[in-house]
């Protein structure tokens, strides 16, 4: 029967071996919005995998932008790798450098990797996560891919922990699937807070936390991306200019994926 002293020493050794976990709870990164940060204290965890999906094909860019915001919060100054699947280019367009810059990121800190299919997406993502050279890896997939299984997400999570990076798997035009991700999100676009003269405002969306391994209950928030502070923030209430425009539609009225349909 090991003594209490031996158990203490073993605990200290274990704490020293795993660099990233302090007292059993992993570190997290904040989103910048007080309501969410308080809810998710200490924030979505670092060095693990997060899964973000958008059911509607029209929300593909929204999901990418949300994940990009999370990734830039998670990585701070370290490089970011964005693995992009080519089939998404036909559906929602290819990446645009000035667009990255306009969202508040530094394009020279973003490494863009273009892959052909889901298998290559996972392989390249795992390679980048395991390397230890980057802070966050964003993997943008399209559609229901057979390759993205529970085992695959477990591999990504292990690679993230081994390499000290945070992984974000974005699946556009896909449903929620079982995954080894720490948190699972679903994103859809929302009407933005307009500027004067009715111009579209800052990027706005509605993010729902479907599942969190740290025990937070599912919840939904309306968010905006503030590029100056590189943080998420609360959208202000709509002014009375637009009358009878429902911002949040009930889930029953959505039915099938509305919005853009797939080509072909």
């Amino acid at each position: 029967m090991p003594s209490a002293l031996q158990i203490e020493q073993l605990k200290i050794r274990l704490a020293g071996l795993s660099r990233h976990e302090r007292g059993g709870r992993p570190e997290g990164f904040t989103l910048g919005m007080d309501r969410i940060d308080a809810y998710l204290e200490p924030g979505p965890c670092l060095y693990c995998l997060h899964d973000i999906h958008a059911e509607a094909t029209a929300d593909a860019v929204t999901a990418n932008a949300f994940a990009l915001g999370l990734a830039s919060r998670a990585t701070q100054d370290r490089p970011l790798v964005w693995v992009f699947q080519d089939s998404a280019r036909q559906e929602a367009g290819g990446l645009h450098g000035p667009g990255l810059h306009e969202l508040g990121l530094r394009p020279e800190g973003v490494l863009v990797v273009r892959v052909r299919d889901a298998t290559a997406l996972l392989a390249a993502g795992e390679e980048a996560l395991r390397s230890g050279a980057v802070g966050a890896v964003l993997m943008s997939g399209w559609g229901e891919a057979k390759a993205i299984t529970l085992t695959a997400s477990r591999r990504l999570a292990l690679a993230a922990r081994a390499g000290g990076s945070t992984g974000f798997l974005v699946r556009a035009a896909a449903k929620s699937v079982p995954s080894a991700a720490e948190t699972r999100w679903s994103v859809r676009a929302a009407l933005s807070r307009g500027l004067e003269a009715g111009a579209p405002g800052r990027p706005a969306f509605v993010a729902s936390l479907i599942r969190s391994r740290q025990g937070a209950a599912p919840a939904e928030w309306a968010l905006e991306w503030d590029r100056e502070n590189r943080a998420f923030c609360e959208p202000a209430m709509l002014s009375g200019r637009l009358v009878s425009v429902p911002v949040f539609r009930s889930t029953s009225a959505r039915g099938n994926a509305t919005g853009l349909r797939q080509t072909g």
Partner: protein
Amino acid sequence: MTLADAQALTTALRTVVHRPDADAVLLSLVLEDFSRFTPMAATDGDDALILDVTGCTHLFGDEVGLVRAVTARSDRIGLKIQTSLASTPQMARVLARFGRGGIFAPEQDRLAVRALPIAALELNEKEHQALTRVGLRTLGDLDDRSTAPLAARFGTDLPVRLARILGQEDVRITPLYPSPPCVIDRILFEPITEMTDIEAVIGDLLVEAIAWLDQRRLGGRAFEVAFFRVDGATRRVSVRTGRATRDAPSVIRLFKERLAALANPLDPGFGFDQLRLSVPVTQAMASTQLGFEAEPTDREDLDRLIDRLTARLGPDAVGRFEPVESHVPERASRLVWAGRRYNGSAWPSRDPGSPPLRPLQMFAPPQPIETVSLAPDGPPAQFRWRRVTHSIARAEGPERIAGEWWCRPGHRTRDYYRIEDYEGHRFWVFRAGFYGEESEPRWYIHGLFA
């Protein structure tokens, strides 16, 4: 004489259609194969090869062994060849073409060339006749004369050519592949076909190459392995790295990734009997002192990751955005290989109060849409794209972006609008052309905002 006359003279005449293009292809294949003897090889005309074997003869024992290997190999292919080995390329050439070939020691080759007829100079008819009429029959006769009258009579070209043929001037050949600074060969007695054996041999060659680089305090930026098959086919596979390296394990790993990811897999056929590793691009690299706890920096790790991804997916697939000085959205930035150092150019400044003015994702080419607008110059009130109609809640514009008239005159001026529909999807659409011109303006969607 014509073919009919020749056939009438002898009945046992075998005719084959002359196909110069097929001959050229064969010659280039033979050149690739004979590169196994030396990296510096070139074609000479359409029926000869010149191999610069300075420093390569020890691989086959001595010169006799080398010539024997070359002859044996061409016999196996089915070619009848005449070889000659001399101290300069031009001497070897004339000895093979106009002499009887053979191996010549440094002084004997000059004597042999002197004995050749003046046809070896390859002059035109008139000059050839002029020389023979005055009794100059061999190159030795020309050599004994002084050059000034020859230059005066036949032009300065003749003495220069004569000097080169006689070995007084040594002009090296231009090889097909530029000769790399470091070349390591491995000739195998038993041809190998298994990937594990191939990787083992590459590993050995790399160790030697790294030792060579280490001696000269250089690092390799690109490494190439040439595979020579027993039946003559050759294949070259190369990897490049973002920063100069002397680290054998990482380069071997890059080769493994590359060989596994080749679009056209390596086909050993009956086996490879020679492998050559060369380092075409080197860079000065001081030896780094490793600390007690060797903590590689983030930058090195990132470079290694870029190298590995490039080896697996190709350099086009791994990139970084760089700004380009162009107001046309398609050309405002480009993707450059991530291994290149950032050139420091700045992106256009952002206005703090405004939302993103450029979309995160863009279509190439822009996709046509049908619109309904309230005013001819205004944003659309409704548009139809991919069989879905969107009603516009918010719009901003127009942002007029004219084409670059100095490169593409027919490009129509575009008016860009940032629009948002009631569901919160934000689009970047434009109208190409104006109402009132001969051709109707067309509307397109160019990108999607976050």
